[in-house]
């Protein structure tokens, strides 16, 4: 009897005894590797067709752009040592001498031309093609000079020229740079275990000197809390957004980790479909915005991971002005404003009405983000309490986005990301007939301002223009910006010289070392 049980027990604990408390290979941590947790695997390592944050970050280490954006989002020299803008429609870039791709061939103006020409080719299916659409021609003037001619003046271009330059000869020879990238950046790919990790090593021939940190691994851990635990367990050396609020709080209180918590370059906002009869009156939109308490959403629901937004101007931009303010929480004022717009509860059923029509709103968001769902539930509650009949419509991102892109929505809670330049969240969004102006907002003054902002490369002019546009948008409320999404990074303080970047880029690791 006991013998049998012994055998069975032995089988049951076989796994335990075999494995035992073996120390993990990773936890030992060889000295010269930084292991960074990521939430998604990269889809491709070809800079022209990249789509996800992991790809941006790996590509930013593997490739060089003409420029790099520093931690203040300002362009600094990359492959280009200098550039001129002789007239608003022409940009000339002078390339650095002696830069080589990881396969040893020199980087030339032809490679720059090839990269910018192919990304604009619809056949490549590049996600960011529209950012380069204003380019008319790219010319390799000589080996180290590139001339970009624009169809119309386009000031934001410089912010998008951090695009990694790919080797023309390799791509034309059929090398699969999606999976075997060849760049000229500080790190090169050693191996990519799909669904697991991307392993990079220092490029000994990097033009700015071989990085001190010899290896960087981007390790996929999809679950946010599991990623935080892996940092605490010593299996990772650095983790960054997206992170869960409770993990952020716990890690902030742990002095084993250094951190940087800042405002990122993304927003969460409510988009009003101004073409819908109930929402076409700016007074109504303003009143609805005044019913929403940003404190509750940002402090309670987002648990302080984001910053309360003041306007469409991001606090990480030079154009930011804290004095430009969208409507703030004022429930009594909102009621008065609605009454002024003709919406009162004339039949005593608890719902506001005007000319026999009830004030109803359909409020939508996508189901992937629980915080957004909680936010729309909160807003629904407030609206209902204040006599606005509010229905929710929540579905997964693909269905949700397919609908709103066709204008089939009333009020939605969504976001914009990668906002390196004010043009990126205004021109397509608020200009009459703009590509992302799904709600049909239109204002001649705003149109003129956005055109001016796009065509002037004078920072003072651009700041003035975007401030003026933001003032009108804050008054007319086609968007109500709820928050500037935060960016958080936690890392082993032994990593010295790393400068956190609001886009989550890791390029400053090239100048860092492990103490």
């Amino acid at each position, binding site marked *: 009897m006991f013998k049998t049980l012994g055998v069975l027990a032995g089988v049951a604990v076989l796994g335990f005894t075999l494995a035992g408390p073996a120390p993990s290979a990773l936890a030992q941590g060889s000295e010269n590797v930084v292991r960074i947790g990521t939430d998604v695997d990269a889809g491709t390592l070809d800079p022209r067709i990249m789509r996800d944050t992991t790809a941006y970050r790996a590509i930013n280490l593997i490739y060089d752009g003409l420029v790099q954006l520093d931690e203040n989002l300002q362009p600094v020299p990359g492959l280009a040592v200098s550039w001129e803008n002789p007239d608003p429609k022409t940009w000339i870039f002078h390339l650095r001498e002696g830069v080589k791709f990881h396969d040893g061939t020199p980087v030339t103006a032809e490679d720059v031309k090839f990269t910018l020409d192919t990304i604009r080719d619809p056949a490549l299916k590049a996600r960011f093609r529209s950012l380069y659409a204003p380019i008319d021609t790219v010319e390799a003037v000589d080996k180290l000079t590139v001339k970009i001619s624009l169809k119309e003046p386009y000031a934001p271009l410089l912010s998008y020229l951090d695009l990694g330059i790919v080797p023309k000869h390799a791509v034309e020879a059929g090398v699969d740079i999606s999976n075997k990238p060849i760049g000229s950046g500080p790190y090169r790919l050693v191996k990519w275990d799909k669904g697991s990790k991307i392993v990079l090593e220092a490029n000994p021939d990097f033009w700015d000197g071989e990085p001190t940190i010899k290896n960087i691994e981007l390790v996929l851990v999809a679950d946010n809390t599991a990623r935080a635990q892996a940092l605490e367990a010593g299996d990772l050396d650095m983790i960054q957004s997206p992170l869960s609020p409770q993990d952020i709080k716990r890690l902030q209180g742990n002095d084993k980790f250094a951190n940087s918590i800042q405002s990122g370059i993304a927003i969460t906002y409510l988009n009003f479909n101004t073409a819908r009869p109930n929402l076409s009156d700016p007074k109504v939109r303003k009143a609805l915005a005044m019913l929403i308490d940003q404190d509750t959403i940002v402090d309670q629901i987002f648990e302080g991971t984001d910053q309360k937004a003041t306007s469409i101007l991001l606090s990480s931009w030079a154009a930011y002005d804290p004095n430009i303010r969208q409507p703030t929480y004022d429930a009594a004022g909102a009621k008065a404003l609605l009454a002024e717009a003709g919406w009162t509860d004339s039949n005593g059923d608890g719902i506001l009405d005007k000319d026999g029509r009830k004030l109803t709103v359909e409020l939508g968001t996508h189901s992937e983000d629980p915080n957004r769902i909680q936010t729309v539930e909160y807003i629904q509650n407030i609206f209902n309490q204040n006599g606005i009949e509010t229905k929710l419509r929540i579905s997964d991102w*693909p269905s949700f986005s397919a609908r709103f892109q066709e204008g089939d929505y009333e009020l939605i809670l969504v976001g914009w990301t990668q906002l390196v330049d004010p043009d990126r969240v205004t021109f397509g969004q608020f200009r009459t007939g703009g590509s992302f102006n799904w709600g049909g907002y239109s204002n001649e003054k705003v149109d003129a301002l956005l055109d001016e902002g796009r065509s002037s490369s004078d920072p003072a002019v651009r700041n003035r223009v975007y401030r003026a546009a933001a003032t009108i948008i804050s008054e007319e409320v086609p968007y109500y910006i709820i928050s500037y999404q935060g960016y958080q990074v936690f890392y082993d303080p032994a990593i010295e010289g790393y400068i956190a970047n609001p886009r989550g880029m890791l390029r400053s690791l090239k100048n860092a070392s492990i103490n």
Partner: protein
Amino acid sequence: MLAYTVKRILLVIPTLVGILVLVFGLMQVVPGDPAAILLGEQATAEAIAEVRHELGLDRPLPVQLGDYLWSSLRGDLGDSFFQNEPVTRAIGARLGATIELAVASLVFAIALGLFLGVVAAINQGSIIDVVSMLFAQLGVSMPVFWLGILLTFWFAVELNWLPAIGRGEPIPAAIAAALSGRPGVLLNSLSHLLLPAVALGLNSAAVISRLVRSSMLETLNEDYIRTAYAKGLPPSAVVVSHALRNALLPVISVIGLRFGVLLGGAVLTEAIFGWPGLGQLAVTSISQRDIPLVQGVVLVFALMFTLVNLAVDLLYGVIDPRIRFE
């Protein structure tokens, strides 16, 4: 028996074709355009239309389906829209990890389930029985992601005994390394496998233990058990050769079904333990509407599930010679 086996294996083919048609239909019904997702939030309508054309999504549905079925018969599952590689390569790179995890958790679940069930049954009503079944109740109620996070917290963060994430060398390679004198490789692989396998397998262990217990209790009351004891057989022989063997039949069929549950649970477990398997690929491909990849992954899952259940059906005959196949 042989004829039966061949017939069952041939029946797998129409099952798989049916699954392919069903998944293809589902992906058409669910809203959300892969081309729009590919191009992201900054896409224009014209750009989306161009990409739809590039991907062949503007062809009539029967043509798309026919093409797909024809090429999959030849082993070509198409190219992933998002991963920039053929579907077979994307799946091939991750399949081993998922099979390893599912098999490890199944082994764990069977071992622990049998042990607890038998112990509880032969000690019916005692404190051992109560504790075992309480444990089973906990196991059944505990969601796999919660258990995974708890296990990581205890064994990786607090005790630092086991790694929180990742996978070592694949087990077959690790065993080969151990045989050639490098046991550290195998220990490393097992230490990575242990937590995810336990997290994923505990629920099944609990289900199996309850089933083994009730099935054992039934058998232990049979006349032939009394006869066996009366013959003077040692209790261990009675329990193992007479009671357990007869009690196993219902358990085997449940084990086949549990394999499906394990494949489903692997999706969550892989996310928590950074395990490089198919589950993550399945989730990403669905949320991206990466139609060829979704179809490929579902096909592979369905194939695995079908084969395991076929094996289970054939096992019946081995365990119980009274069963005849026709």
